[in-house]
């Protein structure tokens, strides 16, 4: 199993302003063959909130770390509620440190930041955990992997088999992207509500399959592509961090042609090979 990820800011924004965040664990290089569990958190911070990129980073890291520590986290139920509670509990201490640091730098929060910060920061969440199947170790069976995913909002997972879309989660049709997505609020202590609004699914991957995790703009492009086979082929051109420049150029071309909404883009690509 190989994994890589690419994150690109919207056109006109700097890398530091990008509000999409990705954490993949364990943090091996993209050309390292993984034989152990893998977790990933993909978050799309809401531009309308302040500190959205910081919350997206904290939330994606928290999701990947906790899913790694607890295999059943993404099955829903109390495990997910505990994760949500833990993630939200990290926000106020982080904010306290941030506010203090700004003060010490001689740049205390302005009046509009105080109001905005009090509203909390918001982000979507897509979390995935993949485990090698225990019963496929013998040479007589094809290797397989079991994956579980949780999603709040419209960041999407696609399961490709023979480089064709076999499954999409949680959004199933492109029309669903028009609506305001559910978001994970940094100050939302109602974890039962967060768990209720989240969606959970699982599946199996075999040799040659791929999982693609991505934020909404790229997912909407992929789903709406007239020639989906060609769209998948274009996307699979990008296979490692050295492809980031080409990835950015490709995204800007799609934006210029009006095919891709000008938004931040995060992509995680997981290729399943032999064991």
């Amino acid at each position, binding site marked *: 199993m190989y994994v890589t990820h690419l994150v690109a800011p*919207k056109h*006109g924004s700097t890398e530091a*302003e990008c509000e999409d965040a990705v954490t993949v664990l364990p943090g091996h290089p993209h050309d390292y063959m993984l034989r152990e569990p893998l977790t990933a958190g993909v978050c799309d911070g809401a*531009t*309308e909130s*302040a*500190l959205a990129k*910081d919350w997206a980073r904290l939330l994606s890291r928290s999701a990947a770390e906790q899913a790694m520590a607890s295999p059943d986290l993404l099955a829903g139920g109390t495990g997910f509620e505990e994760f949500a509670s833990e993630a939200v509990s990290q926000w106020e201490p982080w904010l306290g440190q941030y506010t203090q640091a700004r003060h010490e730098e001689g740049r205390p929060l*302005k*009046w*509009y*930041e*105080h*109001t*905005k910060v*009090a509203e*909390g920061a918001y982000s979507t969440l897509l979390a995935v955990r993949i485990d090698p199947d225990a019963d496929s170790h013998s040479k007589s069976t094809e290797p397989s992997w079991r994956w579980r995913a949780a999603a709040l909002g419209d960041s999407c997972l696609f399961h490709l088999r023979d480089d064709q879309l076999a499954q999409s989660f949680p959004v199933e049709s492109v029309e669903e992207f028009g609506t305001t997505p559910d978001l994970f*609020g940094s*100050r*939302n*202590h*109602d974890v039962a509500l967060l768990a209720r609004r989240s969606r959970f699914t699982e599946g199996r991957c075999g040799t040659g399959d791929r999982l693609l995790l991505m934020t909404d703009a790229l997912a909407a492009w992929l789903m709406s592509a007239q020639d989906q086979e060609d769209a998948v082929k274009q996307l699979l051109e990008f296979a490692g961090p050295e492809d980031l420049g080409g990835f950015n150029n490709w995204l800007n071309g799609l934006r210029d042609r009006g095919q891709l909404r*000008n*938004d931040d883009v995060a992509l995680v690509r997981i290729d399943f090979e032999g064991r």
Partner: protein
Amino acid sequence: MPYTAEISRSNPTSIIFLVDQSTSMSDPIGGEVPQQKADVVADAINRLLTELSIKCAKEEGVRDYFHVAVIGYGASVGSAFAGALAGRDIVPLSEVADNPARVDERSKKVSDGAGGLVETAVSFPLWMDPLAHGGTPMNRALQYAESLVAGWTERYPASFPPIVINLTDGESTDGDPTAAAEAITSHATADGAALLFNLHVSASGGTPTAFPDTADGLPDSYARTLFAMSSPLPSHMRSYAASQGQRVSETTRGFVYNADITTVVQFLDIGTRATELR
């Protein structure tokens, strides 16, 4: 499709408020607690500038998605900004946010994120003060706005077009404002013609009317003139108005007659509603 341009820092839009500051604006406005029209209008503009600043605030400062002018017309026509921005016309929102004339602190109950409420200090910045003195030189005000709109559309030819919002008690004292209004909406960007919305804060009788599609039922010639001057609402504003409980149709215009305090605030909210900010 017009009125769909992305609003971003490299492609901002402008909002130009025209605020009637004539003597008659000291008359009371309808509502539970009678207030001067001038007070209600100034309060609504200050509140809107606060909300716009907060909406566009990020940790590195307020993003200049909007550039804003507040032009008063009464004894004179010109910038209604007080404090450091006095005399300025179109000002980037980041400068607006960083330069209120003063900031009042008030307490407000806000959600604690766990189903409860906590009392917290909230800042109420103020950029303009109420004023009610002199005639109603609406023509000159609209001409002033036209010069700003002309400059803007030339500078940002691909942007969402400028939005001009005229808040008045309706009685122009320097002639029929129709031609000056038409001159404003004759300017356009690639995304559509400049928009002119009118809010008639009349205290006289007549049924309050919000976002009508015809002048039928409007009680006087001032109201009918302002209706005729008003642009149809672009579709995203129409949808937003409908979601706020307003009855709208395809030909709904950005016009309100006999507005009460709540309607003034809601009108400004609908009239400045942006498509997605990028």
